[in-house]
């Protein structure tokens, strides 16, 4: 008995370690893709945004004229509107610190130009800021359940008990990350070059079905106990809208691997959070006296409405800016 339990816990640990390894590998892949060095910027060798309103430049030579008119900073979404530069200060080591008249967003892209000596450079968003923004926005601000109404099917079906909700949330997040990365690879490496973007619905649902089926078969053979515990959730995932929405959103936005990963992670966290909150509330609801007409789904919907109302508060969440 003890022996079996130990071997089971060991197999669980091994499985989790394997998944963590895959996730780590994807993070590393994503990070290298984001941090890939951009094209050379001439005189400007590096540019970094310092929150809230500073920009530090690394120059190739001694600092040029420290006149704000010598520099031009624009938002890459509005390249004709220069951002007001208030002050330019030289720092040791060929560095220049610009102070601008508005708040800079570390997750947005800017372009900095110098007139004399000529040079220009794109200020890329810092990888951590970009990923954090995507994760936060998909988990809280645009929570898939409460503001985009995806996955309601499973959301209302599984959120009756807390244990099932937690199991489902974890399984879901893992499958979501795997399927998003697989779909990203298929989409950007195969479908875009072949110009068959219009087949995305067909291909993505195939990817999800394949992945779920493969995981199910592998788990059944290698980790029977895990399969007994979480296999049910796996089958439910196949025809779910969230799991299909993430690759579709990624494809629509032409995201890179890092953003795809962040979106999948954020939506997984958001869904797990929604499931957990809802299951806690519904366990209490069992004890409440609900009007007959509202019993079952109607009261669950009303409850979800209250949660959605609370989640609207997150729309003001932007501490990066």
């Amino acid at each position, binding site marked *: 008995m003890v022996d079996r339990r130990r071997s089971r816990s060991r197999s669980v640990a091994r499985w989790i370690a394997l998944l963590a390894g895959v996730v780590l590998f994807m993070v590393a892949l994503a990070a290298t893709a984001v941090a890939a060095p951009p094209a050379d910027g001439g005189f400007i060798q590096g540019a970094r945004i310092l929150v809230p309103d500073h920009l530090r430049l690394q120059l190739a030579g001694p600092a040029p004229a420290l006149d704000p008119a010598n520099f031009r900073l624009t938002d890459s979404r509005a390249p004709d509107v220069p951002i007001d530069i208030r002050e330019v200060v030289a720092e040791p080591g060929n560095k220049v610190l610009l102070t601008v008249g508005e708040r800079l967003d570390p997750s947005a892209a800017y372009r900095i130009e110098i007139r004399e000596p000529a040079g220009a450079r794109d200020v890329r968003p810092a990888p951590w800021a970009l990923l954090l923004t995507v994760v936060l926005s998909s988990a809280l601000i645009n929570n898939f359940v*409460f*503001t*985009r*109404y*995806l*996955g*309601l*099917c499973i*959301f*209302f*079906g599984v959120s009756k008990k807390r244990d099932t909700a937690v199991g489902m949330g974890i399984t879901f997040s893992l499958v979501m990350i795997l399927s998003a990365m697989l779909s990203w690879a298929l989409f950007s490496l195969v479908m875009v070059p072949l110009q068959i973007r*219009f*087949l*995305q*619905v*067909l291909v993505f*649902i195939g990817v999800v*079905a394949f992945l779920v089926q493969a995981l199910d078969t592998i788990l059944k053979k290698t980790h029977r106990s895990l399969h007994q515990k979480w296999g049910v959730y796996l089958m439910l995932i196949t*025809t*779910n*809208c969230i799991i*299909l*929405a993430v690759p*579709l*959103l990624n494809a*629509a936005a032409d995201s890179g691997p890092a953003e795809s990963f962040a979106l999948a992670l954020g939506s997984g966290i958001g869904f797990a959070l929604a499931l957990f909150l809802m299951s806690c509330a519904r366990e209490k609801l069992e004890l409440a006296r609900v*009007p*007959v*007409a*509202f*019993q*079952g*789904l*109607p*009261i*669950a*919907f*009303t409850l*979800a*409405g*209250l949660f*959605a*109302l609370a989640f*609207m508060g997150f729309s003001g969440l932007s501490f990066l800016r």
Partner: protein
Amino acid sequence: MSQPILLRERPPGARQLLMNGIFGENPVFRLALSLCPAVAVTTTVANGIMLGVAVLLVQVLSSVTVALTRRAIHPRVRIPVYTIIIAVWVSAIDMVLAGFFPSLYAQVGLYVKLIVAFAIIISRLEVFASRMPLIPTFWDGLGMGLGFLFALIVIGVFRELLGSGAILGYAVVPEKPLLFFALPAGGFFSIGLLMAFFNVLERRRNGGKASAGGGGGHGHG
């Protein structure tokens, strides 16, 4: 709903199938299927109609396709085959809508693509189209599609009227009575209220007996 239609021997008539889809087994209010889009796109009536028409077309077309090919589909692989049939029709409808109604499509495009994951469509294929001949299948698909469209329009009118005081974009009430209903949270409340309302109606009709439909059922889709 005295007896589920499928248990009868002969395929029922067109009128009966249509009424069954719209009222007796309304996909949204009675079967509690495919709720995600019902909440998501119904901020305005126009969006609801757009998605409802898309679902109607996909449902009818894939039902008919399955009814025509059901003898060729091996029962073991039927679910993947159904999924592929639905996905093909969804892609086609998606491209048509994107081409002809670009501005509306920009708002509901994601949900049109997600029709492929709607439980209502595949469940109709599994329950009805795979066992019945072509003509009843067509009427059943049409009835279910119309039922879905009807539900989306009801919710859409409810939310647009209360949320922005207009119907189909034309102002009916001078000011916005309850902006809350146009917001995401309002969608959940509207569905909850409408479902409770339909439950009350059903209870009245059954003479006070508890209803088994949207109230007690568990959601899928």
